[in-house]
């Protein structure tokens, strides 16, 4: 879809919880071709890193540092203007909306008529091998279908980078492998930088990019 490749750059990030520094200063750049993985024990602040990136860090935390997307600083922007797509551990498909309504919620408003929007959603579903699911209630989908619809919803919003907050965690093993491959493959064809937070080493191997390990307020990078 987008040919230009994007870059997400984080510089001098220090994250602290109630005055105690969790990690940092941390600087790294996420390139489109190389999905970056952040690992560490629970409580090390890896999920808070993503919350900070999307601009919704809980009030108990404090953060210092900059983040820019394609050289444009975004850390002062409200969350809705940052253009970062994020997949959470739960698919968070809205339970009161059908599959196509969930997708239409993400389609940019510049596509105006209801017919056009529906066509975009249908095309996206077809491309993902999910033909005919438009009017289904998300609760009736299989786990794999739900995960893929959630991914489609993020992509339809045309993000400039993709953040993954342990999105494979709740899937069972074979499904997990397939969905993981789909996510990285899609990100590659769209030239999206990917930043993944996980505690599963297999995820990091599949990502095949740099690995950042957080923990015990110390930092190692390899």
């Amino acid at each position: 879809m987008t040919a230009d490749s994007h870059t997400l750059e984080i510089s001098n990030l220090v994250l602290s919880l109630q005055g105690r520094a969790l990690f940092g200063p941390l600087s790294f750049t996420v390139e489109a071709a190389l999905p970056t993985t952040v690992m560490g024990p629970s409580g090390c602040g890896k999920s808070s890193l993503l919350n900070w990136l999307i601009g919704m860090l809980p009030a108990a935390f404090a953060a210092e540092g900059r983040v820019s997307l394609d050289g444009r600083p975004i850390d002062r922007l409200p969350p809705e203007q940052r253009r970062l797509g994020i997949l959470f551990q739960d698919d968070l498909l809205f339970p009161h909306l059908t599959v196509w309504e969930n997708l239409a919620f993400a389609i940019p408003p510049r596509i105006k008529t209801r017919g056009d929007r529906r066509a975009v959603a249908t095309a996206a579903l077809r491309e993902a091998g999910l033909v005919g699911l438009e009017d289904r209630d998300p609760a009736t989908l299989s786990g794999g279908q739900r995960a893929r619809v959630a991914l489609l919803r993020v992509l339809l919003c045309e993000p400039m980078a993709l953040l993954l907050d342990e999105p494979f965690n709740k899937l069972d093993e074979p499904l997990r492998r397939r969905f993981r491959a789909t996510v990285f493959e899609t990100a590659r064809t769209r030239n999206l930088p990917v930043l993944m937070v996980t505690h599963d080493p297999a995820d990091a191997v599949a990502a095949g990019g740099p690995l950042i390990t957080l923990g015990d307020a110390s930092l190692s990078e390899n």
Partner: protein
Amino acid sequence: MDRGLLPLRPTQRRWPILGAGPLALVPLAIQAILVGSVCLGLLFLILPALGYLPALGKSAFDFAPLRAALAYPGLIAAMIATLISGVLATVVALLLALGLIAVLDPLGLGDRGGGRWLRRSMLALIATPHIAIAIGLAFLLSPSGWLIRIAAQFLAIDQAPDYLLVNDRHGLALALALAIKETPFILAVALSALRRIDAEPQLRLCRSLGYSASAAWPKIVLPQLYRLIRMPVFAVLAYGLSVADMAIILGPSLPPTLPVLILRLIADPDLASRLTASGAGLLQIGLVLAAFLLWRGAEGLCAWAAHRAVTRGRRDLPTSLRWIARLLILAAGVGVLVLGLASIAGVAVWSITEVWRFPEALPARFSLATWIRVFGGLADPLWNSLALAFATSGIAMVAAVACLELEDRLGAVAARRSQWILFLPLFAPEMGFLFGLQIAASAGGLTGTVGAMLWFHLLFVFPYVFLTLSEPWRALDGRYARAARCLGAGRWRVLLRVKAPLLRAPLALSLAVGLTVSLVLYLPTVLAGAGRITTLATETVALYGSGDRRVLGVYALLQTMLAAAIFGAAILAGRPRLFGRKPPAMP
């Protein structure tokens, strides 16, 4: 009873409830009472309304009572005023309660500063008896009321103006009072439902998809929230269409609203009036059903519009619209709050007034003379009210605990399937089925007895007690009980030594809810007591005709103070017993 540790869940049976022993009788009995009473009431209303009343020598079915009711002067106007006040109050209360959450919640203001203050004082209004709100509002708005007196300090007003703000023809003052009373109720229900939605991650996702917080909330959280509070909203609607005591005080008088008209027909010594009354009762049921259908239709329309809007992908509301909506909602919220609190203040001031001439903003002299004068006559209704409240709440508490404990023992599904039955009296057209029930009770010679009072009160006290207790009970982590069983405690010991102490606060709160519901019940008391047993609630309404504001002030304030004392005691009793220990987290 104690079958040791083995069967945590009895083996699958066709009727699992049969395996639960004597405990199972309590929920069965309470369900039988609730359903039986509503059915009996409807039957004894519908039969005479269709002309079948052997006591009057009529046993052929015809539509004479219905025709008589329809021909009764002012009946159509009464129906219209009832519909307007009931529906309008529900719409206003619902919009205002949801609007307040929509304004405060996405910004995280609900827990901070002004938002917290607004929410807390709103919730305090729940505990205020609605009769006190009605009397206080009448004091405020009447032509010689407090508002005019205050205005008179700035304008040249020296005699009571000739306008009709209360007792207006369409029941608008009644709608306002109902809205003041119901907004905090819907707000409380919605706040507790909001915790079950887990909106926070969804809102986070919405913002990463480019939605502003104030646009995401109505599109994503609101529809899910409404689904959870539908039942209480229908109950509010049914109540608004059936309310009698507030309507006597604030509603139109010639003709009054339909429930009041029916009450007058019942009180008429002419027996033919009773047939007309049952015809009007049937119309009342039809009115409630029609309002339900109307509401259902409106829900469908709103859902259709909401689904269209959500697929349009608009990321933000127009700024002007957003600010206008916020201002309107906050102004209305503060307005409702101020009117509610000012009503209570008015009631309090009048109760200690000695001399208060018309255009003055405050009484010239205060005294406790009215309290002392009234106190002698107060003893009887006060004692009746309290005895009745404690007896019904006690029964309701035991029954509710038995239902929930049985649910734990059987596994939730079997018990929950039939749980809507427990709330039936809250949705049934109150005036209609209670009138029928009164006919049935008086046929059995029960009206005016303590038994009938307990019976009629239980129909309304039990659902509220169960409603308050069930959610925290079910939210209690089942592992505590399982751990205790593994330590060798029997089921009853677990109930008394583990569950009860852990559920101390909700148990105290639901008892308080039961007591206050019973204290303020008017229609069931009037119909069951048949004028022979009076309570504070019936005395207050009866005294309203006298127009003595001081005496009314005493009665209304006394009921407010009773409710406040009950809730205060419940909060104190709900505190953990040991110093320095936190109560278990209640989700």
